[in-house]
């Protein structure tokens, strides 16, 4: 097992820089998820750790060793690819044992390791099949089996679940988490799905345009996003954002309505801000929000509802901007109905209107 360190890592294709000097320290046994929209450089970063992409600047270290110039086979890593990349001409057994065969292990040793890995992932009945005769979920498990059979220091996952259907994805997510608890190995996992990131990670690394925006535990990045990008990217539905100006110790929106300033901010009169509130913190009166000091009330007209069973999403206009609110213990709501909503101010956020950075002290 090992730590992974990225120091000022840069990736350039010709003159185009796609990863801009990122720094990241991953502890031994930690499950780190790189998340971001497509094209943010997360897969490129992972591939640089794997050795499949050259490193244009900076240093990647696994354990105590700088691996910049080592080929993938000398980095003691294993990787699960998005399209699984199983060897189609080999049986599951041969796929699993391939790395050991290359490393010239004896046949009994290979068989033992393969059987062990197959047992962990319930692949034993499939060992003599070829990948073509497996379902998507089974292929996914073989790909994971191929990764664990060698006991590498670091596991790399490149969007391993995005080719599966929703139900299987949830199931495999749980299996990956269990696997991590069992193996206690360092894992770097790339995904564009923030739900996967939240559920799997010890720490989430949110990337955009080749920069790291924020690093933190799932709850940290959810509760204290450093900017509007993180606020809207993490959490579902995305955080509602409204532009306003600080006037007379309140946030005044474009249509003249206003809300009190959430606690914990030091603001100047006339400062332009972006007010952020999650659907979970804006609910109709009488639907589960606790009463407290920092509550405000607004009246809105509901345009559209999305019943989800345990909750209903309500789409309404607040100060001329469409926002999403949540209704726990839902009752039927007609579109066009006017309702009073509570806003839980101490869970709201203020960002700089220009840079999008948080204004929290």
């Amino acid at each position, binding site marked *: 097992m090992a730590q992974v360190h990225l120091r000022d890592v840069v990736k350039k294709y010709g003159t185009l820089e796609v990863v801009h000097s990122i720094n990241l320290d991953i502890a031994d046994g930690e499950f780190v998820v790189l998340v971001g929209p497509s094209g943010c450089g997360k897969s490129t970063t992972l591939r640089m750790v794997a050795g499949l992409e050259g490193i244009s600047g900076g240093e990647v270290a696994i354990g105590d060793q700088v691996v910049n110039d080592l080929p993938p*086979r000398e980095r003691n890593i294993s990787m699960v690819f998005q*399209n699984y990349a199983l*060897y*189609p001409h080999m049986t599951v057994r041969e796929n699993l044992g391939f790395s050991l065969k290359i490393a010239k292990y004896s046949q009994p040793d290979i068989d033992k390791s393969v059987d062990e890995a197959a047992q962990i992932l319930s692949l034993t009945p499939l060992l003599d099949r070829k990948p073509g005769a497996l379902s998507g979920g089974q292929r996914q498990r073989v790909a994971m089996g191929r990764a664990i059979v060698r006991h590498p220091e670091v596991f790399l996952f490149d969007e391993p679940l995005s080719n599966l259907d929703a139900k299987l994805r949830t199931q495999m997510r749980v299996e990956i988490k269990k696997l991590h608890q069992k193996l206690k190995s360092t894992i770097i996992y790339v995904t564009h799905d923030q739900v996967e990131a939240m559920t799997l990670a010890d720490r989430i690394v949110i990337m955009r345009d080749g920069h790291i925006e924020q690093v933190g535990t799932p709850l940290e990045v959810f509760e204290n996003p450093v900017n509007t990008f993180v606020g809207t990217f993490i959490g579902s539905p995305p955080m509602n954002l409204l532009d306003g100006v600080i006037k007379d110790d309140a946030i005044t929106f474009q249509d003249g309505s206003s809300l009190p300033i959430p606690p914990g901010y030091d603001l100047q009169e006339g400062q332009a801000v972006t007010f952020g509130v999650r659907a979970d913190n804006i609910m109709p009166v009488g639907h589960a929000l606790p009463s407290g000091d920092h509550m405000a009330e607004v009246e809105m007209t509901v345009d559209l509802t999305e019943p989800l069973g345990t909750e209903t999403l309500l789409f309404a206009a607040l100060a001329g901007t469409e926002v999403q609110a949540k209704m726990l213990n839902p009752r039927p709501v007609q579109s066009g109905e006017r309702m009073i909503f509570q806003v839980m101010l101490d869970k709201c956020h203020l960002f700089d209107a220009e840079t999008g950075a948080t204004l929290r002290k």
Partner: protein
Amino acid sequence: MASKINHRARHVALKWSHTAGLFCAMMVLCVPGLWIVLNSFRPTVEIMAKPPVWIPNNLNLDHYRAMFGGIGEGSVPVLTYFTNSLIISVTSTVIAILVGMAGGYAFARYKFKFKGGIFVGLMVTRAVPGVALSLPLFILFARIGIIDTHIGMILAYVALNVPFTVWLIDGFFRQVPPELAEAAEIDGCTRWQAFWRVEFPVARSGIASAGIFAFLTSWNEYALAAQLTRSTTSKTMPVGLLDFTSQFTLNWGGMCALAVLMIIPALILTFLVQKHLIAGLTFGGVKG
């Protein structure tokens, strides 16, 4: 009830007309081949008969005996021709496949300057009819002294086949996801091992089909061979067929016997790699 019977009758009629149509089509395709095989087994009188004798009265191995025994009129060194053909075709195919694999892999995997131009250039060489090259090739080969040699023929056929094998194999390597080689590298392979242990076996069907095309081209080629070979040291079988013609006669029986001899290896090879050939030709369409 009546409509049901009607429906069934139509079904049967359709099936029969389908079979009859297929039979006619296959007959058009097969009769020349069968006629060659048939003629190689019967006396010249019967071959030349007018109207043609469809059902043979008398089958024998006379033409084969004459061909191999070197007896009778215009004996032909068939075994030498066969050996020449085999050496030239096999060697040129092996070289064309090796070059085709290297080239096809490079085109499929790497980015380099003028890639598109070089690729189109390779294809354009296929647009020039082979016969048009026979005279320049003849002069060139004569000057450097490789006319009427195996080497000369092999060179010519490699040049003829390489663009095609590069093009075909490029297509097959494109179908192999690059992640396979990457996975192999992470599993501990060198770049070279990743190619031979993973990418090559996966693209094997395609390479086999490129190989059989190259082999058949060399095996059956006549126009260039007719110009570049002079004597038994390098004459191939298609050229050897002409030995059965003399000033006033045409030994149809002997010619057919040699033709049968030519068809057999091609047929055997096609049967051997048939599975690969079909898999290769449909590779792109059925990618799972």
